[in-house]
């Protein structure tokens, strides 16, 4: 109930902050989608270069001695 009331007040409000908030929302979504799209492209590329036998690769990586 409280949430509904708050939303309603925001919808009726004409103060600058509320207008800005409404205006910012599509931009933020756009940015989010752009980032997601970039990440998807990146993950495609990464899938191509990843070591094929991950288990063997990880298990055989042993570094003894140092410092």
């Amino acid at each position, binding site marked *: 109930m409280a949430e509904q009331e708050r939303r309603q007040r925001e919808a009726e409000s004409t103060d600058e902050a509320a207008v800005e908030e409404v205006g910012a929302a599509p931009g933020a979504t756009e940015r989010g989608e752009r980032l997601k799209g970039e*990440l998807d492209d*990146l*993950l495609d*590329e*990464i*899938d191509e*270069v*990843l*070591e094929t036998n*991950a*288990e063997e*690769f*990880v*298990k*055989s*990586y*042993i*570094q*003894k*001695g*140092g*410092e």
Partner: protein
Amino acid sequence: MPVPKTLGIETEYGIVHRGVSDPNPISASSLLINAYLSRQAEPGRGPGSPRVGWDFVDESPAVDLRGFTPLDAMAPEIETHLVNAVLTNGARYYVDHAHPELSTPECADALSIVLQDRAADHILIESMEAANAVLPDGQELVVYKNNSDGKGNSYGCHENYLMDRSTPFSRIVQHATTHFVTRQVFTGAGKVGCELPFRERDYMPFQLTQRADFFEEEVGLETTLKRPIINTRDEPHADPLRYRRLHVIVGDANLCEVATFLKVGTTALVLAMVEEDMIDPSLAVVDPVRAMQAVSWDLSLARPLELADGRTATAIEVQWELLKAARRYLDDRGPDMVGGSVAHEVVRRWEAVLTGLESDPGSLAGQVDWVTKRRVVEGVRDRHGLATSDLRLAAVDLQYHDLRPDRSLFARLGAEVLVDPADARLATRTPPSDTRAYFRGRCLARWPDRIVAANWDSMVFDVGDNALRRVPMMEPSRGTEEHVGTLLDTCETVEELLDRLSA
């Protein structure tokens, strides 16, 4: 008295010899470095690195060897069984235990460190290419810039800071510890898994740093067992009456240039403030060993740490306090001891990274390694529906650090650069102009056949008739282009150089 913060980074790289049944990391490291040195020595490749060995002789701390006055001949003791070379950029490139290690030349500011750290990576990449060109088909050397093998074995990326000898060591311990515990929020290179003894690997699916799992003590001399947050090694490689070198072993090797810049730049500022006693003594973290791990394990960045005066604060809040103090320091004392104008950029970026960590850590992808890596690890996990214990995620972690250009995940992530890549390539051969590395590097490039050995604080010249002359360089901020550039440009021979140095 405060002293200019001469800086350096020593990186031990991980190495794998593929295609052999019984790989030996020591011989693999030797092969890697020797292949690079041989390639540089080929005719027509310009003033490459000569085969000058590292000089292990100890300087006598009782004798003040400041300046460039040549002493009488001394027979240097040169370690010959492991590769140990000095490069024309003033760096040292050698086999350390079972790793190839590269120590950057001395740098005067954090941006110069970024340039030399990037140059170091180029040298390792060129070394792989050179080695793989001579290895039989089916064999390959692969180098990783990380600090852990995921099985409880760690190797270091050590930082060095020149400090005033008269600063009380207890004060350094207190404030440096506070910084080392809390700076992890932007210095961490990220790690899939946990390497604490008696814990399952997936006890911690992802944490901020590679190294926090390996620290067990607050102060000590060790680097491989019972590692301390503050290392007490006392080898100033400079006038021991005036200087101390703080050897820092807690850090991760960073791929992101912004992270390297901040790691070294903020630490230089904190140490300068320690010299001037300008940090609030109450800003001390209780039980710093546990706090290091707590910070590294806290992806929310919100966990409060207990402070010595009873307050609590998150790592980010402690960092805000240190940043505020750094601003006061710069207003009051200016940037001369902390890298000149670069220090102002350190402070600007320091504020930006703390703001980003508080508001939207994801926005720091490309600047902070753990953020950059985490995005990919979680992206791969979600895309393929993997469990957090799936070894494919550990493989992504490892491959983030793979230095092969065609395999490196980091190289694909569009990280922000602070130095021109062409300048970084040039820096594989040319020394910084504003420290004694300039003298070392230029001499090596000009008279490789006449230099018998070199180390951080001296060089030994062959002056004929079986005589050697040692040139001490006990003052890290002397021997710069400004001091000796004209001298080196106008000397025709080593004899002339030595005569004019002692005049």
